[in-house]
Protein backbone atom coordinates (compact mmCIF):
# COMPACT_ATOMS: atom_id res chain seq x y z
CA UNK A 1 0.00 0.00 0.00
CA UNK A 2 1.29 3.39 -0.89
CA UNK A 3 2.25 5.76 1.88
CA UNK A 4 0.08 8.84 2.45
CA UNK A 5 1.48 11.87 0.71
CA UNK A 6 2.06 13.75 3.95
CA UNK A 7 4.56 11.20 5.16
CA UNK A 8 8.09 12.05 4.11
CA UNK A 9 9.99 9.05 2.84
CA UNK A 10 13.36 10.65 3.45
CA UNK A 11 14.51 13.34 5.81
CA UNK A 12 17.19 15.82 4.79
CA UNK A 13 19.92 15.97 7.37
CA UNK A 14 21.02 19.36 6.05
CA UNK A 15 18.13 21.77 5.55
CA UNK A 16 17.80 23.20 2.08
CA UNK A 17 18.62 26.85 1.73
CA UNK A 18 15.93 29.24 0.63
CA UNK A 19 15.60 32.83 -0.44
CA UNK A 20 18.69 34.99 -0.38
CA UNK A 21 20.90 32.20 0.95
CA UNK A 22 19.81 29.98 -1.90
CA UNK A 23 20.71 32.66 -4.43
CA UNK A 24 24.10 33.00 -2.81
CA UNK A 25 24.51 29.25 -3.02
CA UNK A 26 23.72 29.28 -6.72
CA UNK A 27 26.24 32.05 -7.23
CA UNK A 28 28.85 29.98 -5.42
CA UNK A 29 28.16 27.07 -7.71
CA UNK A 30 28.75 29.28 -10.70
CA UNK A 31 31.84 30.92 -9.31
CA UNK A 32 33.51 27.94 -7.70
CA UNK A 33 37.06 27.05 -8.68
CA UNK A 34 38.04 30.66 -8.31
CA UNK A 35 36.72 32.17 -11.48
CA UNK A 36 34.29 35.00 -11.73
CA UNK A 37 33.15 33.88 -15.13
CA UNK A 38 30.52 31.28 -15.89
CA UNK A 39 31.81 27.87 -16.82
CA UNK A 40 32.25 27.20 -20.48
CA UNK A 41 29.65 24.81 -21.85
CA UNK A 42 30.19 22.97 -25.07
CA UNK A 43 28.72 19.89 -26.71
CA UNK A 44 30.73 17.42 -24.67
CA UNK A 45 29.64 19.07 -21.43
CA UNK A 46 26.00 18.82 -22.42
CA UNK A 47 26.45 15.17 -23.35
CA UNK A 48 28.15 14.46 -20.05
CA UNK A 49 25.32 16.20 -18.23
CA UNK A 50 22.76 14.06 -20.03
CA UNK A 51 24.63 10.87 -19.14
CA UNK A 52 24.73 11.91 -15.50
CA UNK A 53 21.05 12.74 -15.61
CA UNK A 54 20.20 9.30 -16.97
CA UNK A 55 22.50 7.56 -14.52
CA UNK A 56 21.39 9.41 -11.40
CA UNK A 57 17.93 10.81 -11.96
CA UNK A 58 16.49 7.93 -13.97
CA UNK A 59 18.14 5.22 -11.93
CA UNK A 60 15.99 2.12 -11.91
CA UNK A 61 16.18 -0.81 -9.55
CA UNK A 62 14.97 -4.19 -10.69
CA UNK A 63 14.95 -7.23 -8.45
CA UNK A 64 17.06 -5.37 -5.93
CA UNK A 65 19.78 -4.47 -8.44
CA UNK A 66 20.41 -1.20 -10.19
CA UNK A 67 19.94 -1.51 -13.93
CA UNK A 68 23.40 -0.64 -15.26
CA UNK A 69 23.81 2.37 -17.48
CA UNK A 70 26.18 2.60 -20.41
CA UNK A 71 28.17 5.61 -19.30
CA UNK A 72 29.16 6.85 -22.74
CA UNK A 73 27.29 8.30 -25.66
CA UNK A 74 26.89 5.64 -28.33
CA UNK A 75 28.73 6.77 -31.44
CA UNK A 76 30.10 5.18 -34.54
CA UNK A 77 33.12 3.96 -32.62
CA UNK A 78 33.41 0.22 -32.57
CA UNK A 79 31.11 -0.85 -29.81
CA UNK A 80 33.16 -3.85 -28.82
CA UNK A 81 36.09 -1.65 -27.82
CA UNK A 82 34.02 -0.27 -24.97
CA UNK A 83 32.23 -3.36 -23.85
CA UNK A 84 35.29 -5.43 -23.07
CA UNK A 85 35.85 -3.76 -19.74
CA UNK A 86 32.28 -3.77 -18.59
CA UNK A 87 30.89 -6.09 -16.02
CA UNK A 88 27.53 -6.66 -17.65
CA UNK A 89 28.70 -8.65 -20.61
CA UNK A 90 28.04 -12.24 -21.49
CA UNK A 91 30.03 -15.15 -22.80
CA UNK A 92 30.47 -13.48 -26.16
CA UNK A 93 31.44 -10.09 -24.64
CA UNK A 94 28.08 -8.72 -25.67
CA UNK A 95 26.20 -6.51 -23.25
CA UNK A 96 23.39 -8.40 -21.70
CA UNK A 97 20.04 -7.00 -20.75
CA UNK A 98 18.91 -5.29 -18.65
CA UNK A 99 20.79 -2.09 -19.30
CA UNK A 100 20.13 1.50 -20.29
CA UNK A 101 21.97 3.34 -22.97
CA UNK A 102 21.98 6.86 -24.39
CA UNK A 103 22.23 7.66 -28.07
CA UNK A 104 22.66 11.21 -29.29
CA UNK A 105 21.48 12.30 -32.67
CA UNK A 106 24.58 13.69 -34.31
CA UNK A 107 22.89 16.81 -35.65
CA UNK A 108 22.57 19.74 -33.27
CA UNK A 109 20.21 22.40 -34.63
CA UNK A 110 19.81 25.97 -33.41
CA UNK A 111 17.90 25.95 -30.17
CA UNK A 112 14.25 26.60 -29.51
CA UNK A 113 14.71 27.93 -26.01
CA UNK A 114 12.51 31.06 -26.15
CA UNK A 115 14.76 33.05 -23.85
CA UNK A 116 17.69 32.76 -26.26
CA UNK A 117 16.27 33.42 -29.69
CA UNK A 118 17.74 35.65 -32.38
CA UNK A 119 17.80 38.75 -30.20
CA UNK A 120 21.37 40.04 -30.16
CA UNK A 121 23.26 40.27 -33.44
CA UNK A 122 26.99 40.12 -34.09
CA UNK A 123 28.09 38.38 -30.91
CA UNK A 124 27.95 41.61 -28.93
CA UNK A 125 29.65 41.42 -25.58
CA UNK A 126 27.66 42.10 -22.45
CA UNK A 127 28.66 43.13 -18.98
CA UNK A 128 28.70 40.11 -16.74
CA UNK A 129 30.64 41.01 -13.62
CA UNK A 130 32.85 43.65 -12.07
CA UNK A 131 35.81 42.14 -10.30
CA UNK A 132 38.01 44.11 -7.90
CA UNK A 133 41.75 44.01 -8.60
CA UNK A 134 44.83 44.97 -6.63
CA UNK A 135 48.33 44.93 -8.09
CA UNK A 136 50.07 45.99 -4.92
CA UNK A 137 49.86 49.69 -5.71
CA UNK A 138 46.68 50.37 -7.51
CA UNK A 139 43.16 49.35 -6.64
CA UNK A 140 40.81 48.92 -9.56
CA UNK A 141 38.27 46.66 -11.24
CA UNK A 142 38.20 44.38 -14.25
CA UNK A 143 35.06 44.24 -16.32
CA UNK A 144 34.12 40.76 -17.49
CA UNK A 145 32.03 40.58 -20.62
CA UNK A 146 30.47 37.61 -22.33
CA UNK A 147 28.40 37.26 -25.48
CA UNK A 148 24.88 35.92 -25.52
CA UNK A 149 24.92 32.12 -25.23
CA UNK A 150 23.93 30.18 -28.34
CA UNK A 151 20.85 28.01 -27.86
CA UNK A 152 21.03 24.43 -29.09
CA UNK A 153 18.55 21.59 -29.14
CA UNK A 154 20.12 18.21 -28.66
CA UNK A 155 18.01 15.12 -29.07
CA UNK A 156 18.89 12.08 -27.04
CA UNK A 157 17.38 8.64 -27.29
CA UNK A 158 17.55 6.79 -24.04
CA UNK A 159 16.93 3.12 -24.65
CA UNK A 160 16.22 0.49 -22.09
CA UNK A 161 16.95 -3.13 -22.91
CA UNK A 162 15.21 -5.61 -20.65
CA UNK A 163 13.96 -9.15 -20.75
CA UNK A 164 10.90 -8.62 -18.66
CA UNK A 165 7.92 -6.34 -18.73
CA UNK A 166 8.42 -5.41 -15.10
CA UNK A 167 11.68 -3.73 -15.98
CA UNK A 168 9.92 -1.62 -18.59
CA UNK A 169 7.25 -0.67 -16.10
CA UNK A 170 9.74 0.43 -13.47
CA UNK A 171 11.78 2.55 -15.84
CA UNK A 172 8.67 4.03 -17.38
CA UNK A 173 7.38 4.95 -13.93
CA UNK A 174 10.64 6.69 -13.06
CA UNK A 175 10.69 8.66 -16.30
CA UNK A 176 7.10 9.78 -16.10
CA UNK A 177 7.45 10.78 -12.47
CA UNK A 178 10.51 12.82 -13.34
CA UNK A 179 8.80 14.43 -16.30
CA UNK A 180 5.36 14.81 -14.83
CA UNK A 181 5.64 18.52 -15.59
CA UNK A 182 6.92 17.80 -19.11
CA UNK A 183 10.41 18.93 -18.32
CA UNK A 184 13.15 18.25 -15.84
CA UNK A 185 16.43 19.98 -15.16
CA UNK A 186 20.00 18.86 -14.97
CA UNK A 187 22.83 20.84 -13.49
CA UNK A 188 25.73 21.12 -15.89
CA UNK A 189 28.73 23.03 -14.54
CA UNK A 190 26.51 25.23 -12.45
CA UNK A 191 23.91 25.91 -15.12
CA UNK A 192 20.43 24.46 -14.98
CA UNK A 193 19.55 23.01 -18.36
CA UNK A 194 15.97 21.97 -19.13
CA UNK A 195 15.20 18.59 -20.68
CA UNK A 196 11.89 17.81 -22.33
CA UNK A 197 10.38 14.36 -22.83
CA UNK A 198 9.24 14.26 -26.43
CA UNK A 199 8.21 10.74 -27.23
CA UNK A 200 8.17 7.14 -26.08
CA UNK A 201 8.27 4.33 -28.60
CA UNK A 202 8.80 0.60 -28.64
CA UNK A 203 11.54 -1.10 -30.63
CA UNK A 204 11.39 -4.53 -29.09
CA UNK A 205 13.02 -7.37 -30.94
CA UNK A 206 10.33 -10.00 -31.18
CA UNK A 207 11.48 -12.16 -34.07
CA UNK A 208 10.24 -15.70 -33.67
CA UNK A 209 13.55 -17.35 -34.39
CA UNK A 210 15.71 -14.86 -32.52
CA UNK A 211 16.51 -13.92 -29.02
CA UNK A 212 13.67 -11.80 -27.77
CA UNK A 213 14.01 -8.76 -25.57
CA UNK A 214 12.27 -5.49 -25.03
CA UNK A 215 13.68 -2.19 -26.20
CA UNK A 216 11.89 1.02 -25.40
CA UNK A 217 13.05 4.31 -26.72
CA UNK A 218 12.60 7.54 -24.76
CA UNK A 219 13.29 10.61 -26.83
CA UNK A 220 14.48 13.59 -24.84
CA UNK A 221 15.27 17.06 -26.06
CA UNK A 222 17.79 19.08 -24.15
CA UNK A 223 17.29 22.84 -24.47
CA UNK A 224 20.91 23.65 -23.93
CA UNK A 225 23.17 26.49 -24.87
CA UNK A 226 26.78 26.90 -25.86
CA UNK A 227 29.15 29.24 -24.09
CA UNK A 228 32.71 29.25 -25.29
CA UNK A 229 35.18 30.69 -22.84
CA UNK A 230 37.36 31.71 -25.77
CA UNK A 231 34.76 34.39 -26.47
CA UNK A 232 34.84 35.85 -22.97
CA UNK A 233 36.35 39.31 -22.77
CA UNK A 234 38.17 40.95 -19.89
CA UNK A 235 38.81 44.67 -19.96
CA UNK A 236 40.32 46.87 -17.23
CA UNK A 237 37.91 49.26 -15.62
CA UNK A 238 38.47 52.24 -13.32
CA UNK A 239 41.68 52.16 -11.31
CA UNK A 240 42.51 54.34 -8.32
CA UNK A 241 45.96 55.31 -6.93
CA UNK A 242 46.44 55.00 -3.23
CA UNK A 243 49.23 56.93 -1.45
CA UNK A 244 50.37 55.68 1.90
CA UNK A 245 51.99 57.78 4.64
CA UNK A 246 54.14 56.40 7.39
CA UNK A 247 53.91 58.33 10.63
CA UNK A 248 55.57 57.94 14.01
CA UNK A 249 53.39 56.76 16.77
CA UNK A 250 55.37 58.59 19.49
CA UNK A 251 53.39 61.11 21.60
CA UNK A 252 56.31 63.43 22.57
CA UNK A 253 55.47 67.14 21.99
CA UNK A 254 57.71 69.14 19.72
CA UNK A 255 59.21 72.45 20.94
CA UNK A 256 57.39 75.28 19.25
CA UNK A 257 59.34 78.06 17.55
CA UNK A 258 58.39 81.49 18.88
CA UNK A 259 57.57 83.96 16.17
CA UNK A 260 58.90 86.57 16.04
CA UNK A 261 62.13 85.62 17.82
CA UNK A 262 62.58 86.93 21.31
CA UNK A 263 66.28 87.48 21.98
CA UNK A 264 67.59 88.08 25.48
CA UNK A 265 69.39 91.24 24.36
CA UNK A 266 67.65 94.03 22.52
CA UNK A 267 67.80 97.78 22.03
CA UNK A 268 65.53 99.89 24.17
CA UNK A 269 65.03 103.48 22.99
CA UNK A 270 63.44 106.08 25.26
CA UNK A 271 62.07 108.92 23.16
CA UNK A 272 61.12 112.36 24.27
CA UNK A 273 58.93 114.11 21.74
CA UNK A 274 58.83 117.82 21.18
CA UNK A 275 57.86 119.61 24.46
CA UNK A 276 58.12 116.42 26.51
CA UNK A 277 60.88 116.17 29.12
CA UNK A 278 59.62 113.32 31.29
CA UNK A 279 58.81 109.68 30.41
CA UNK A 280 57.87 106.83 32.73
CA UNK A 281 57.64 103.14 32.04
CA UNK A 282 56.63 100.15 34.20
CA UNK A 283 58.67 97.06 33.47
CA UNK A 284 57.06 93.63 33.72
CA UNK A 285 60.36 91.82 33.60
CA UNK A 286 63.84 91.96 35.07
CA UNK A 287 66.35 93.63 32.88
CA UNK A 288 69.77 95.33 32.99
CA UNK A 289 70.12 98.51 30.97
CA UNK A 290 73.42 99.82 29.64
CA UNK A 291 73.54 103.24 28.15
CA UNK A 292 74.74 103.26 24.57
CA UNK A 293 74.09 106.82 23.37
CA UNK A 294 71.98 109.94 23.72
CA UNK A 295 70.71 112.49 21.27
CA UNK A 296 69.72 116.08 22.05
CA UNK A 297 70.13 115.36 25.75
CA UNK A 298 72.07 117.72 27.96
CA UNK A 299 71.61 115.58 31.06
CA UNK A 300 69.01 113.26 32.51
CA UNK A 301 67.85 111.99 35.92
CA UNK A 302 66.53 108.51 36.72
CA UNK A 303 63.91 107.58 39.27
CA UNK A 304 62.86 104.06 40.22
CA UNK A 305 59.54 103.85 42.00
CA UNK A 306 59.89 107.65 42.55
CA UNK A 307 63.18 107.11 44.30
CA UNK A 308 65.96 109.13 42.82
CA UNK A 309 68.75 106.92 41.43
CA UNK A 310 71.14 109.45 39.88
CA UNK A 311 71.94 111.65 36.94
CA UNK A 312 73.42 110.49 33.69
CA UNK A 313 73.75 106.92 34.95
CA UNK A 314 75.12 104.44 32.47
CA UNK A 315 73.78 101.26 34.05
CA UNK A 316 70.43 100.40 35.54
CA UNK A 317 69.16 97.23 37.16
CA UNK A 318 65.39 96.99 36.97
CA UNK A 319 63.20 94.46 38.70
CA UNK A 320 59.78 93.26 37.73
CA UNK A 321 57.00 95.84 38.26
CA UNK A 322 59.46 98.69 38.81
CA UNK A 323 58.23 102.07 37.62
CA UNK A 324 61.07 103.94 35.94
CA UNK A 325 60.93 107.67 35.26
CA UNK A 326 63.37 109.65 33.13
CA UNK A 327 63.59 113.42 33.31
CA UNK A 328 65.84 115.22 30.84
CA UNK A 329 67.21 118.64 30.00
CA UNK A 330 67.27 119.04 26.24
CA UNK A 331 70.01 120.76 24.35
CA UNK A 332 67.48 122.14 21.93
CA UNK A 333 64.10 122.22 23.64
CA UNK A 334 62.13 122.33 20.39
CA UNK A 335 63.55 119.07 19.07
CA UNK A 336 62.91 115.43 19.92
CA UNK A 337 65.38 113.66 22.20
CA UNK A 338 66.33 110.02 22.60
CA UNK A 339 68.25 107.92 25.10
CA UNK A 340 69.41 104.55 23.72
CA UNK A 341 69.93 101.60 26.05
CA UNK A 342 71.00 98.09 25.51
CA UNK A 343 68.69 95.81 27.49
CA UNK A 344 69.70 92.40 28.76
CA UNK A 345 66.99 90.17 30.20
CA UNK A 346 67.74 88.53 33.49
Amino acid at each position, binding site marked *: MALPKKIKKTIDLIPNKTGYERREQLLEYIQEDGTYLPKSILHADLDRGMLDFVKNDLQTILDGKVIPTVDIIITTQNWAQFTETWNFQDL*DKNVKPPFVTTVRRPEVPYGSNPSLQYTIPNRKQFYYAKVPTWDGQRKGVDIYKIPQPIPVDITYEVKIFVNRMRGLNEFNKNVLQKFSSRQAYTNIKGHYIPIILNNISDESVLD*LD*KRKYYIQNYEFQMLGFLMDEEEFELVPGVSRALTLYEVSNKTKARKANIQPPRPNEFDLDIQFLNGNTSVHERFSYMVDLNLTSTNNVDDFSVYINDDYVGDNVTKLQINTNDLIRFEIVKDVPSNDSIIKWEATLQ
Partner: protein
Amino acid sequence: MSQRKVPITRLNKFFSGEDFGLDISMGQEWLHGDMNFSFVLYRVDKQRTKKDDVYGEVVSEGIQYHPPVELKGYLQIEAPENKFMGNSRIDQVEPGNLKVGIYQDYLDQMGVDIEFGDYIGYYEKEDKVRYYSVVDDGRITSDNRHTYGGYKPFYRSITASPVTNDEFNGI
Protein backbone atom coordinates in the same frame (compact mmCIF):
# COMPACT_ATOMS: atom_id res chain seq x y z
CA MET B 1 -4.22 -38.31 -31.04
CA SER B 2 -6.82 -40.70 -32.28
CA GLN B 3 -6.93 -44.16 -30.66
CA ARG B 4 -8.09 -45.71 -33.91
CA LYS B 5 -5.22 -46.97 -36.02
CA VAL B 6 -5.39 -47.09 -39.79
CA PRO B 7 -2.77 -49.07 -41.76
CA ILE B 8 -0.57 -46.98 -44.05
CA THR B 9 -0.59 -48.61 -47.40
CA ARG B 10 0.75 -45.86 -49.63
CA LEU B 11 3.86 -46.70 -51.57
CA ASN B 12 3.23 -50.34 -50.70
CA LYS B 13 4.27 -51.61 -54.10
CA PHE B 14 7.88 -50.88 -53.35
CA PHE B 15 7.99 -49.69 -49.73
CA SER B 16 6.54 -51.08 -46.52
CA GLY B 17 6.55 -50.56 -42.81
CA GLU B 18 9.39 -52.99 -42.46
CA ASP B 19 11.45 -51.02 -44.95
CA PHE B 20 10.64 -47.84 -43.11
CA GLY B 21 11.67 -49.34 -39.79
CA LEU B 22 14.88 -50.68 -41.28
CA ASP B 23 15.88 -47.37 -42.78
CA ILE B 24 15.11 -45.51 -39.59
CA SER B 25 17.19 -47.91 -37.55
CA MET B 26 20.04 -47.61 -40.03
CA GLY B 27 19.83 -43.86 -39.90
CA GLN B 28 19.89 -43.88 -36.10
CA GLU B 29 22.86 -46.19 -36.18
CA TRP B 30 24.69 -43.70 -38.36
CA LEU B 31 23.59 -40.65 -36.40
CA HIS B 32 23.98 -42.03 -32.90
CA GLY B 33 26.77 -44.48 -33.50
CA ASP B 34 28.94 -42.78 -36.08
CA MET B 35 28.20 -39.08 -35.74
CA ASN B 36 27.43 -39.14 -32.02
CA PHE B 37 26.38 -35.48 -31.66
CA SER B 38 25.01 -35.11 -28.18
CA PHE B 39 23.46 -32.23 -26.27
CA VAL B 40 21.78 -31.77 -22.93
CA LEU B 41 18.11 -30.91 -22.71
CA TYR B 42 16.94 -28.88 -19.71
CA ARG B 43 13.18 -29.15 -19.66
CA VAL B 44 11.31 -26.45 -17.80
CA ASP B 45 8.95 -27.75 -15.16
CA LYS B 46 5.99 -25.56 -15.94
CA GLN B 47 4.10 -26.71 -12.88
CA ARG B 48 6.70 -25.71 -10.34
CA THR B 49 8.09 -22.62 -12.08
CA LYS B 50 7.18 -19.39 -10.32
CA LYS B 51 5.51 -16.96 -12.62
CA ASP B 52 4.23 -13.45 -12.50
CA ASP B 53 0.47 -13.32 -12.06
CA VAL B 54 -0.04 -10.48 -14.53
CA TYR B 55 2.50 -11.01 -17.27
CA GLY B 56 3.22 -14.71 -16.84
CA GLU B 57 6.91 -13.89 -16.79
CA VAL B 58 9.18 -15.96 -14.66
CA VAL B 59 10.29 -14.18 -11.55
CA SER B 60 13.98 -13.94 -10.83
CA GLU B 61 15.52 -17.32 -10.05
CA GLY B 62 12.03 -18.78 -10.39
CA ILE B 63 12.47 -21.33 -13.17
CA GLN B 64 12.33 -24.95 -12.07
CA TYR B 65 13.66 -27.78 -14.22
CA HIS B 66 13.18 -31.45 -14.75
CA PRO B 67 16.32 -33.53 -14.49
CA PRO B 68 18.50 -32.84 -17.54
CA VAL B 69 18.61 -35.45 -20.28
CA GLU B 70 21.44 -36.14 -22.70
CA LEU B 71 20.13 -36.64 -26.23
CA LYS B 72 21.63 -37.33 -29.59
CA GLY B 73 20.63 -35.64 -32.83
CA TYR B 74 21.88 -33.92 -35.93
CA LEU B 75 23.14 -30.51 -34.89
CA GLN B 76 23.79 -27.48 -37.00
CA ILE B 77 24.88 -24.11 -35.67
CA GLU B 78 24.30 -21.16 -37.91
CA ALA B 79 26.93 -18.50 -38.51
CA PRO B 80 27.06 -15.55 -36.11
CA GLU B 81 25.46 -12.34 -37.26
CA ASN B 82 26.81 -8.84 -36.81
CA LYS B 83 23.94 -6.43 -36.35
CA PHE B 84 22.46 -3.66 -34.29
CA MET B 85 20.35 -4.41 -31.30
CA GLY B 86 16.96 -3.29 -32.54
CA ASN B 87 17.15 0.27 -33.83
CA SER B 88 19.92 1.23 -31.47
CA ARG B 89 23.47 1.85 -32.54
CA ILE B 90 24.70 -0.91 -30.35
CA ASP B 91 26.15 -3.41 -32.73
CA GLN B 92 27.24 -6.78 -31.62
CA VAL B 93 27.96 -10.20 -32.97
CA GLU B 94 25.10 -12.47 -32.09
CA PRO B 95 25.83 -16.20 -32.13
CA GLY B 96 23.79 -18.16 -34.63
CA ASN B 97 20.83 -20.35 -33.87
CA LEU B 98 21.10 -24.04 -33.11
CA LYS B 99 19.13 -26.37 -35.32
CA VAL B 100 18.59 -29.93 -34.19
CA GLY B 101 17.21 -32.74 -36.26
CA ILE B 102 16.12 -35.60 -34.02
CA TYR B 103 14.30 -38.83 -34.61
CA GLN B 104 10.81 -38.89 -33.15
CA ASP B 105 11.19 -42.57 -32.47
CA TYR B 106 14.27 -41.82 -30.40
CA LEU B 107 12.42 -39.22 -28.37
CA ASP B 108 9.63 -41.69 -27.77
CA GLN B 109 12.12 -44.28 -26.60
CA MET B 110 13.73 -41.79 -24.23
CA GLY B 111 10.35 -40.70 -22.95
CA VAL B 112 11.01 -36.99 -23.34
CA ASP B 113 9.53 -34.23 -25.39
CA ILE B 114 11.08 -30.94 -26.41
CA GLU B 115 8.89 -27.89 -25.98
CA PHE B 116 9.03 -24.15 -26.42
CA GLY B 117 11.15 -22.48 -23.76
CA ASP B 118 13.20 -25.54 -22.88
CA TYR B 119 16.94 -25.00 -22.78
CA ILE B 120 19.60 -26.90 -24.65
CA GLY B 121 23.22 -27.01 -23.63
CA TYR B 122 25.81 -27.85 -26.22
CA TYR B 123 29.44 -28.33 -25.28
CA GLU B 124 31.53 -26.74 -27.96
CA LYS B 125 34.73 -27.57 -26.07
CA GLU B 126 35.44 -29.40 -22.86
CA ASP B 127 35.20 -26.18 -20.90
CA LYS B 128 32.84 -24.13 -23.01
CA VAL B 129 29.15 -24.69 -23.16
CA ARG B 130 26.62 -22.52 -24.89
CA TYR B 131 23.00 -22.56 -23.98
CA TYR B 132 20.06 -22.11 -26.27
CA SER B 133 16.39 -21.61 -25.76
CA VAL B 134 13.95 -23.54 -27.92
CA VAL B 135 12.07 -21.09 -30.12
CA ASP B 136 10.58 -23.71 -32.43
CA ASP B 137 10.00 -27.19 -31.05
CA GLY B 138 9.18 -28.65 -34.47
CA ARG B 139 6.06 -30.30 -33.21
CA ILE B 140 4.38 -30.10 -36.61
CA THR B 141 5.92 -32.70 -38.90
CA SER B 142 3.18 -32.96 -41.49
CA ASP B 143 5.16 -31.44 -44.32
CA ASN B 144 6.81 -33.58 -46.99
CA ARG B 145 10.30 -32.77 -45.82
CA HIS B 146 9.72 -34.46 -42.47
CA THR B 147 8.34 -37.63 -44.02
CA TYR B 148 10.29 -40.46 -45.48
CA GLY B 149 9.47 -40.11 -49.14
CA GLY B 150 5.92 -39.20 -48.23
CA TYR B 151 5.44 -42.36 -46.25
CA LYS B 152 5.36 -41.27 -42.61
CA PRO B 153 6.93 -38.40 -40.59
CA PHE B 154 9.97 -39.59 -38.74
CA TYR B 155 11.99 -36.66 -37.34
CA ARG B 156 11.60 -33.20 -35.84
CA SER B 157 13.45 -30.04 -36.57
CA ILE B 158 14.16 -28.04 -33.44
CA THR B 159 15.34 -24.43 -33.59
CA ALA B 160 16.90 -22.81 -30.53
CA SER B 161 18.36 -19.34 -30.16
CA PRO B 162 21.27 -18.53 -27.89
CA VAL B 163 20.61 -17.09 -24.46
CA THR B 164 22.78 -14.95 -22.22
CA ASN B 165 24.14 -16.49 -19.10
CA ASP B 166 21.98 -14.29 -16.91
CA GLU B 167 18.91 -15.97 -18.39
CA PHE B 168 20.23 -19.51 -18.14
CA ASN B 169 23.59 -20.81 -17.11
CA GLY B 170 23.01 -24.48 -16.46
CA ILE B 171 21.65 -26.05 -13.32
